[in-house]
Every structure is written in structure tokens, then in C-alpha cells.
């Protein structure tokens, strides 16, 4: 009872990276609170899926294996999470801020009337006091201890808000892939495995949506794991403008990223977006080309080792966090970088 739960996202029978990252975080939160870490694995033909999650320090794995649970659809997964939570009364529930997590989380929170904070960038345990109404209707101070601080950017990334839900359980949060770090705790960690009777949790009437067709493409790039990223902003001017970034990236063995403005303008594909509403990256080198540096972008790349900004606006906000600022247009500078890299690299 009152443990930390992670809902694991499963494609086929592979647990998603974001879920393993959340198990790592969940383990730390559970240690701070002195409780156990549990997780939910729901799908079909899961095999020994528990072996994938146990090394992250999971004390109990709840397995729901039935036809109809894969591919994911909203109602059956909501039913099993809600009904399990009614029995287990977790104090914290974490999910990936993925298409699945953002489809499932709100339904579960609505059903349990618990608070949910989307796209958290930090999760901490802490105490605080708040003014609440007592039985006589007077405002009094009330102390809360060991609460989950759900920290997230808001308002387009211009502010950071710390959210708490003191009076409702579980405290629910979603986190984007790449925001937390995934770390194996103990390859031989032994937790309990519970295989649930799915029919007890999911009434037949919940299987209402049919998946007729499904295409998963292998990711075209590896932005998250790239050690060098060449990234373009609205200043690239066009989709063709991005061509020179791909050329530079090819020379540097780098990946190409983009700001939200560039993606919204159609210059780059959505899956290349870096920032609060895109991918969070931590490369060794980040070359920002024609990116002004709205906070929502900076939030997703500020931990890069070396930041090089190429911008014809000397006052571009990104320049304040850059190690190197090149005052000039991308059209001038990028071809020169390619030229001098070729000349000097060997």
C-alpha cells in the first residue's frame, strides 16, 4: 500500500526507454519515502517482460497479459490501472509523457479524481504548508510532509511551476523521454511478479476501439544519443535551407535537430524538434544555427557540453548561454565550417 507505481509502456514485448527512466526515478523517490517501487506491464504475449524491469529495482511487477491489451487502446488500459489502484492505493504514479501516457494519464486521473501534472522536468519529495479551510470554514495553515513536487515549465516555457496535490492520491505525473536518466540498480535485483487475471480488472465492454492498421517506423535518427547536434531555427528560412545543416552534420557525424519555430514553419520534421515540447538532448557539442533561443527551446538543450550559436542578431537570447557566438548569417558561416572542417580534419 502507498507505494510508488510506474506504468510501463510496452511495444510488442519491449519496455520503452521512457518507462525504464521513470523506474530509475521512481526507485529514488521510493527510497526517499521509505516505500516500495511497483510497476504495471500490460500487453499481449509479454513473455518474461519482468526481466527487463527488475534490474531497475522494482519490488513488485504487476503483469496483465491478454489479447486486446496490445496494441494499446484507452479504455482497457484505463480500467486495469484504475481497478488496480483502487486495491493498491499508490501514493505516486508516473507515466511517460508519450502518446500513450498522455492518453491514459488524464483518464485515470479523472476516474480517481486525483491530480495529474503533464510533462514534468523534475520530481522531488518535500514538505510545505498551505492555507486550507477547517471544519468551521476558517482558513488555517496545514503542514504537509513528504509530498511529490511536480516541477514543469509552463506558459510556453517561460516560467517553471512547482505543482503539488496534497489532498488526493495518487499524485500523478508524466515525464518526457530523455528527461530522466536510466540507470540499472542491480542486474540481479529480485522482486515479486504478480500475474493478474485480466478479466477481473477489465470488463469485456471496455474493448470498444479496434486498431485496424498500425505502422511503426524505426526512428530515422538518434538525436537523443548524438554526441554532436547541428540544429536549425526559423532563421534557416526554408526546408532547402536545412540542406546545408544536413551537409555539415554528415561531415561531423552529427544529427540534425530543429527548433519548434522551424518545425511549425515546415522546415523540418516534427520528430526532430528539440525543446520542452520536443526531445531533450545532452550532446557534447550543440551548434545552433539561426535559432533565437526561446526558453522552450533552451529547456531542451541547455545541458549540452559546448554550445555554438550562429546568428546574425547579436542580441539573440541563445547567445547568453553559448560558449561561442558567431555573428553572421548561416548562409555565410555554415559553408565555411564545412570547408574548414574538411581542410583541417585530416
Amino acid at each position, binding site marked *: 500500500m502507498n507505494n510508488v507505481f510506474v506504468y510501463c509502456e510496452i511495444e510488442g514485448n519491449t519496455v520503452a526507454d521512457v518507462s525504464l527512466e521513470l523506474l530509475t526515478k521512481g526507485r529514488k523517490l521510493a527510497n526517499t519515502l521509505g516505500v516500495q517501487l511497483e510497476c504495471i506491464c500490460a500487453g499481449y504475449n509479454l513473455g518474461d517482460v519482468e526481466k527487463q524491469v527488475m534490474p531497475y529495482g522494482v519490488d513488485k511487477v504487476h503483469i496483465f497479459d491478454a489479447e486486446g491489451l496490445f496494441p494499446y487502446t484507452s479504455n482497457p488500459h484505463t480500467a486495469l490501472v484504475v481497478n488496480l489502484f483502487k486495491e493498491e492505493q499508490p501514493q505516486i504514479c508516473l507515466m511517460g509523457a508519450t*502518446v500513450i501516457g498522455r492518453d491514459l494519464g*488524464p483518464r485515470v486521473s479523472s476516474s480517481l479524481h486525483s491530480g495529474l501534472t503533464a*510533462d514534468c522536468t523534475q520530481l522531488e519529495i518535500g514538505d510545505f504548508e498551505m492555507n486550507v479551510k477547517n471544519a468551521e470554514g476558517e482558513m488555517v495553515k496545514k503542514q504537509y510532509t513528504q509530498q511529490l513536487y511536480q516541477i514543469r515549465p509552463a506558459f510556453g516555457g517561460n516560467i517553471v511551476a512547482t505543482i503539488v496535490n496534497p*489532498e488526493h492520491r495518487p499524485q500523478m505525473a508524466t515525464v518526457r523521454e530523455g528527461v530522466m536518466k536510466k540507470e540499472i540498480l542491480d542486474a540481479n535485483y529480485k522482486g515479486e511478479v504478480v500475474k493478474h487475471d485480466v478479466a477481473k480488472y477489465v470488463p469485456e465492454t471496455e474493448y470498444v476501439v479496434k486498431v485496424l492498421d498500425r505502422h511503426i517506423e524505426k526512428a530515422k535518427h538518434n538525436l537523443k544519443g548524438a554526441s554532436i547536434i547541428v540544429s536549425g531555427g526559423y532563421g534557416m528560412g526554408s526546408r532547402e535551407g536545412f540542406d546545408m545543416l544536413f551537409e555539415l552534420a554528415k561531415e561531423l557525424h552529427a544529427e540534425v535537430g530543429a527548433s519548434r519555430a522551424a518545425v*511549425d514553419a515546415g522546415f523540418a520534421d516534427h520528430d526532430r524538434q528539440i525543446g520542452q515540447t520536443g526531445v531533450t538532448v545532452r550532446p557534447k557539442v550543440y551548434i545552433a544555427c539561426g535559432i533565437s533561443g526561446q526558453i522552450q527551446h533552451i529547456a531542451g538543450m541547455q545541458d549540452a*557540453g559546448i554550445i555554438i550559436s550562429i546568428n546574425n542578431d547579436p542580441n539573440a537570447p541563445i547567445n547568453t548561454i553559448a560558449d561561442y557566438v558567431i555573428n553572421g548569417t548561416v548562409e555565410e558561416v555554415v559553408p565555411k565550417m564545412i570547408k*574548414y572542417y574538411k581542410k583541417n580534419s585530416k
Partner: protein
Amino acid sequence: MSLKIVVLAKQVPDTRNVGPDAMTPEGTVNRAALPAVFNPEDLNALEQALRLKEQFPGSTISVVTMGLPKSAEVIREALYRGADEGYVITDRCLGGADTLATSYTLSQAIRKIGAFDIILGGRQAIDGDTAQVGPQIAEKLGLTQVTYAEEILKLDPVAKKIVIKRHIDGGVETVEAPLPLVVTVNGSAAPCRPRNAKRVMKYKNATAPAERTPEQVDAMAEMLAKKPYLNITQWGAAEIDADPAQIGKTGSPTNVKAVKNIVFKAKESRTMTDSDADVEGLIVELLESNTIG
């Protein structure tokens, strides 16, 4: 066969273009400098609704928004583009609502509007980026949902089924779901058609009661007697039979403990020109330190 379509819309500050004037010298957000706009993905949802209306003549589109009285602006915008009627849910006691209290309030309003076949809304709003209100409304109304929708491929009003193409992580999926349901639409779906000039003429004087100044009330009453469609329905918490414990700040499980403006720590940076010498110098330096190479 005609359909009853509900579209959820929100008026939001335009956070996409937070320029230099949108920040105060202290680095805080100058909200007044941000224009209020129709939440972009709600426009994509409206377009899907308008396409259904074309496909099934006689269908009606009711647009619902919750917010300040001035949020009736999004209702007018929707009327200009082809919606049939609008509802503004506004009340002081609704202030401070989180997504759960908001979805409760909107679900109560939708119940009051009556029977419907489909509820469409944007995937998320750009002020909060949470994507929670759509699924929570679905849960409150006991309906299923299809989120991240890209396109409605087919709707069969007799069999009461809909086929939708949606985005999933790393791919696409086609699903078949029963009506009625809630569908949230992506920004990459078809953009909304522009205003129709005739409809702008017809609806430009449409207002919600809270928008009217005392001087306008009598003239408006006269106009509404002839043109009742110029009234944007306005409901408060009482009109939608809202449970006071589930609305506004009281009905919100989440509390904001602290808010801070982001101030990034400025680094010691080296500035250079775009000259050949400077660019080559940088490349050589990065190569020599094995930073690249």
C-alpha cells in the same frame, strides 16, 4: 443522416511568439503583451467538424468555451468559419480551475446542450500544453476517446462507427471506434478554412450577455427579437448544475506551490565574426581539443 457535433475551443495567450517585448526588463512574462488567440489545435478540430457537416448536410456544430466573457471572441471566430451556435461558460467561481475541474465544468455544459454524436477538440492548448482536458471529458461522460487524431477517414451514422487516422509515437495507426466519442485533433491535421465573408457580415454582432455594455442592452434586445442567432449562450455554474465542490480552485486537486521565472545563467562566451579566419580558427580549436573530429 445529420450529426450533432460539439467543438471544444479555448482562448489562449499566444505563447508561440514570446518576443523581446513580451518579457519585462526583470525577465518576467508580460502577459498583457501577448495577444489572445483561438487555440491553434482547436481550429484543426473545427475544420474536422466542418468537413463532417459538409458530408452530412443538416448537421449542427455547437462550439463550447470556458473562460472570461471576452473568450466569446473564439465563438464568433467559429461562427465566421461555419459553426452554428456557441456557448460561453463563464463564472467567477470557475476561476483557478485545473484540468480536472475544467473538464468537469465542460462535461456538465455538454450534458446540458444535450444529445451529440461526436465531441471534437484540439489535442492540447498552447498555454498549458497538458493535453488532459479532452480525455478527462471523455471519462466524465463515460465515452471512449481517440487522441492525436490526424484525419477522420470515415463516419457511418447508421452503424454508429467512426474510422480515424491518428499519430502514435514513431508511427501512425488507423482505429475504428463507436459513436458517440471524444476526438482530439493534432496541429498537423488539415488547417482550418478561413472566415467566410458572408458569415462575418451575419455574425459580427453576435455577443454573449456579459460582453454587452449597459447602453447596448436595449438595442441588442431589439436586434435579438429579429435575429435570435446573434445571441451567444452564456452559462454560469448554476445553469450547468455544477457541484460547487468540483469546480474552480476548490475542485482542483493540483495546487501551484511556487512559480519562478526562468533565468538562464549566462556563460562566459567568446564572440567572433563570420570571417574565414575566425571560422577556421574555431574549427581548428575544436579539432585540437578533440571536441569534434
